[in-house]
């Protein structure tokens, strides 16, 4: 633990903790909509933003936020149309994003490919003080949106048509969710990298919902798991000199496996014990034909 006495380790720890907290808070809405992989696509688009930033010597984080937000809004507009060709449009956007990023980073003379790797797979140990401030501010924005607007975002992700009939500002909320997804991607970029961003949005949620019954409980447990995976992962990475981003994600997946096994064992044990819980109640038949 002595490593955490160093400034760079403290910044690394703070950075991944912010990511571990913010990514699942946003990811739960994507999972609810069954769009769990959208974060991955937005991550691809963000790489073009990184390339633009490196090429023009601006902060890659800021350009990544702008470009990925534009990409996220485009994704939302494609989703809203619900066209069959939407699948292809998303593929064009995502692969255009990642190849545009690689292309621009290569154009940025004097910058080595080490930079590209840092953005693709994360590099929390090189988090600067300025990086950390940007991450804290953006992470705060993500938490404010996802926690304060939870009932409304839950409503549009649960049943968009009902929300529309109820007069909720569905379109504005959808666009806000899209832009917040882009911001989350950028926050997580330093910690786990653009290729693993989606994992931190999805895996803690997938693990939490194995043992929860409600949406709010799932959200809170997913945030706890995200923070725990980030802390344990960065500690392992520091102790054993492993790749930090990948280690954090592997820890989250390990948590998922443990919970999945635990839940299965618990269910089997309950069945063996003959305990019939509320969920095990005999349900009335769906259809009764009356004589």
């Amino acid at each position, binding site marked *: 633990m002595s490593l955490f006495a160093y400034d760079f380790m403290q910044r690394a720890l703070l950075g991944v903790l912010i990511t571990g907290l913010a990514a699942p808070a946003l990811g739960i809405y994507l999972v609810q909509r069954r769009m769990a992989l959208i974060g991955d696509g937005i991550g691809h688009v963000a790489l073009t933003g990184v390339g633009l930033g490196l090429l023009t010597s601006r902060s890659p984080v800021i350009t990544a936020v702008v470009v990925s937000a534009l990409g996220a809004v485009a994704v939302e507009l494609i989703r809203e149309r619900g066209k069959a060709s939407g699948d292809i449009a998303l593929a064009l956007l995502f692969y255009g994003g990642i190849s545009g990023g690689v292309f621009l980073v290569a154009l940025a003379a004097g910058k080595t490919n080490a930079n590209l790797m840092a953005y693709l797979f994360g590099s929390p140990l090189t988090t600067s003080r300025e990086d950390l401030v940007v991450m804290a501010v953006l992470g705060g924005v993500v938490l404010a949106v996802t926690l304060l607007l939870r009932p409304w975002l839950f409503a549009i992700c649960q049943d968009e048509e009902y929300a529309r009939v109820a007069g909720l500002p569905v379109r504005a909320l959808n666009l806000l969710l899209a832009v917040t997804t882009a911001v989350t991607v950028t926050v997580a970029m330093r910690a786990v990298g653009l290729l693993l961003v989606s994992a931190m949005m999805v895996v803690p949620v997938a693990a939490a*919902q194995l043992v929860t019954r409600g949406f709010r409980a799932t959200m809170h447990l997913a945030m706890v798991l995200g923070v725990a995976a980030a802390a344990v992962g960065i500690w392992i990475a520091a102790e054993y000199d492993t790749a930090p981003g990948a280690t954090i994600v592997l820890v989250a997946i390990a948590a998922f496996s443990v919970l999945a096994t635990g839940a299965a064992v618990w269910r089997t044990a309950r069945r063996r014990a003959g305990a019939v819980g509320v969920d095990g109640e005999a349900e009335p038949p769906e*259809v009764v034909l009356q004589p």
Partner: protein
Amino acid sequence: MSTVVELRDGVVAYGDRPVLRGVDLTVHAGEVVAILGANGSGKSTLIRAILGLVPLLAGTLSLFGVSRRGRELRGQWRRIGYVPQRLGAGSGVPATVAEVVSIGRLARRGLLRPAVAADRAAVATALASVGLADRATAPVGTLSGGQQQRTLIARALAAEPELLVLDEPTAGVDALSQSAFADALRAFVAGGGTVLLVAHELGLLQPLVTRAVVIHDGTIAHDGPVPAPAGHHADPHHDHVHPHAPHDPPGIWTGR
């Protein structure tokens, strides 16, 4: 008697295919109107047009006497409780019955306003009225089809609407849920509510219905008392089979 819904010459088309061709429908306060018709007759499209979920190509629509299109009409939507056929697609994450029903309150709660005691009371009352008070903390995914349907009705009732719009509320619903549902609807009507429902068959709801509108091929074929079942449908023992709709569960016919 005030007018709740007034549709004049409503025309709706999906692409080039006309679904509703010049439909007039007026619903007055306190009425329970059932829209009947075969699959594909346009009955669901009619209520979707009234709810603003599909655009009107021609014709005028007014809700609660407000006839302008756009934002002014949107203000009237919160006076409507909508009960869709089934739970939305957003079931990737577990949600409790109470959480889903609470969505109904959002129409009355301003954006970013915290839930107050009145919101929680309305949710509890709505759950009790459909007989699901003891299932409030159960995940909706574990409920039977009928209980999920009652959850959706409770969500609509939680908004304390003046008009309930229901899309096939009794399709594939068990008898226990049907009677709980009929009780909830009866209480809503007794409290001065208006109901517009689409149904394949009325079942236990039949005694509640004050007027039936039959849609055939995109036009209104009948508007008046509930028509008596004709032909083999009149036989209370008839086996209800829809060869054109293999996925439709058999309906319930109480033949009253």
